[in-house]
């Protein structure tokens, strides 16, 4: 299998400064938020790669950079060998655009409330001037809704049904890759399982590749083949699913696994993790996790750890072995 997406040294910095007049008056410095910092990984064709992390980890930003909604500050994203940010051949860009689609978190905000479902689903094709007759109806049936739903408006559907419509829209252009940004975290448990099953079925039928972005470890464990753990914009650990869950190497991954509520841990008395996620505008020096890390040594506060390969795992920690 070959990598369909290759991400190299990806960095994204957002300028979150106040307007220049305020900065002038308050003598406040320019505030730069590093949302993604030097992240590299590859996604194999026809696999599910999951990015997990807490808020501010940069997982959604990476997803948006990959689909081209946000340009990278440094580094590159190669999709089927094409870099959307630098490619000049319009035909190649268009081909890649059709190959990569996205499913969003909020099924209520991701469908235009004034459009009929038929037009929503067919838009990716219609925007390219393709033939859309019967397309929406076919896709609706493929995602488990009925063809008669095409004439309705989004508000006539429940959250789970809306997410199915979003999936149908993502499939319209016949993509190879779908970036799923927290696709089920707005859904109730019983509906979440329907959507996850649908996504698994579609992957098998259509040979799709998923980049699955989530904060929910149980969902990630269920869906992913390979998992990358992000902390404060940095990739701290990456491993095949079973390896990662059986033997997490990075102290942050271990902390995350311990802190996650478990369905079978009745009345568990955990020693909760210490501290909170630091401010991404002024991240800690060296390893970003060192102020909270139980194992931290001097070197951790001075030197940012490089990604190292340990068996199947890649980990960014001085001490992991």
């Amino acid at each position, binding site marked *: 299998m070959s990598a369909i997406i290759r991400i190299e040294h990806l960095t994204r910095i957002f300028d979150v400064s106040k307007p220049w007049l305020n900065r002038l008056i308050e003598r406040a410095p320019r505030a730069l938020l590093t949302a993604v910092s030097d992240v590299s990984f590859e996604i194999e064709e026809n696999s599910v790669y999951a990015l997990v992390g807490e808020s501010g980890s940069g997982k959604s930003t990476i997803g948006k950079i990959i689909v081209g909604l946000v340009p990278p500050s440094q580094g590159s994203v190669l999709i089927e060998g094409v870099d959307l940010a630098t490619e000049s051949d319009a035909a190649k860009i268009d081909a890649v655009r059709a190959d990569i689609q996205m499913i969003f978190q909020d099924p209520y905000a*991701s469908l235009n409330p004034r459009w009929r479902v038929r037009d929503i689903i067919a*838009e990716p094709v219609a925007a390219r001037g393709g033939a859309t007759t019967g397309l929406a109806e076919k896709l609706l049936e493929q995602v488990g809704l009925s063809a008669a739903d095409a004439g309705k408006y989004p508000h006539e559907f429940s959250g789970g049904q809306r997410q199915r419509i979003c999936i149908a*829209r993502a499939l319209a252009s016949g993509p190879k890759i779908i970036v799923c940004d927290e696709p089920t975290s707005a859904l109730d448990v019983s509906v979440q399982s329907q959507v996850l099953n649908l996504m698994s079925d579609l992957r098998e039928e259509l040979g799709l590749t998923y980049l699955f972005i989530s904060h929910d470890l149980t969902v990630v464990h269920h869906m992913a083949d390979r998992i990358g753990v992000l902390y404060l914009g940095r990739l701290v650990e990456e491993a095949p699913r079973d390896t990662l869950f059986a033997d997490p190497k990075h102290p942050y991954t271990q902390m995350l696994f311990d802190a996650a509520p478990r369905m079978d841990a009745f009345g568990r008395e955990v020693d909760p993790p210490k501290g909170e996620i630091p401010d991404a505008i002024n991240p800690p020096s060296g390893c970003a996790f060192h102020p909270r890390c139980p194992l931290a040594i001097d070197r951790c506060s001075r030197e940012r750890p490089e990604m190292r390969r340990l068996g199947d795992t890649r980990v960014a920690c001085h001490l992991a072995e």
Partner: protein
Amino acid sequence: MADTSSDIRPTRLRRAWNSDIAWSFRHAPVAMVSTLVVVVLILGAVLAPLVAPHDPFNPATLNLMNGFTPPGVANQFTGDFFVLGTDDQGRDVFSTILYGMRISLFVGFSAVLLAMVLGVTLGLLAGYAGGWTETIIMRIADVQLTFPAILVAMLIFGIAKGITPPEYRDQMAIWVLILAIGLSDWVQFARVVRGATLVEKNKEYVQAARLIGRTPFAIMLRHILPNVLNPVLVIATISLALAIIAEATLSFLGVGAPPTKPSLGTLIRIGQEFMFSGEWWILFFPAATLLALALSINLLGDWLRDALNPRLR
């Protein structure tokens, strides 16, 4: 929350009748009365040539002897009867009001349309494009807000009057009025649309359209515009009342509709000359009509705002 789960698809009319907005309307007596008043007044204005008992601007039908006939009383010289009395030149006040409303409403509607098109376009552009485009548009708006709207209108009116040849002035007056009021009123449309656009453009359906490869123009027009129209509708209604009043104010100040084509404001200006000599009706009835029109439209706008606000439902 409309019940949409039933499989029977009711007819379009039935659905409209059952929609939330229609339901809210049927349960708001103020809105119903306001609508009635507005509809009657607009019909009266539109159909003025048919319903007006006299043609007040045809000198051939005027009889100076009919001047200052009080309302509801026969004229002491000619025996003619006028429901709302006559003015100094013997024109029937009721008829002048009907014709005056035509001018007032035409100016009001056109000015609001102009302000709306201008404001919505600039607001959408500012909200969606951001950056320098936004800064420039919104600073112009801010500067304009520091002048009273009526002052801006008078300024535009003055410039226009300076550059039009005197023989066209009366014909141009109406269009200049529309331009003056429209240009002084776009700011609130722009502000509201910009705010709503800022909210909508971060919603995921807009991101989905962007990643499909839609052009910014298509996204603004087809995705964002339909979703920011609710507040625009509310402002347009309230602006209509304000525009009619602004027109009346300008005309009252003598810079608006000419006496040959009087609007409600011109009628009020003419009427106030006779207020202290006992001929109160010449002022009172045009003023009362203006009040009823503006108040009803305003009340309608208030209701619309509440009805369209999902949080108040």
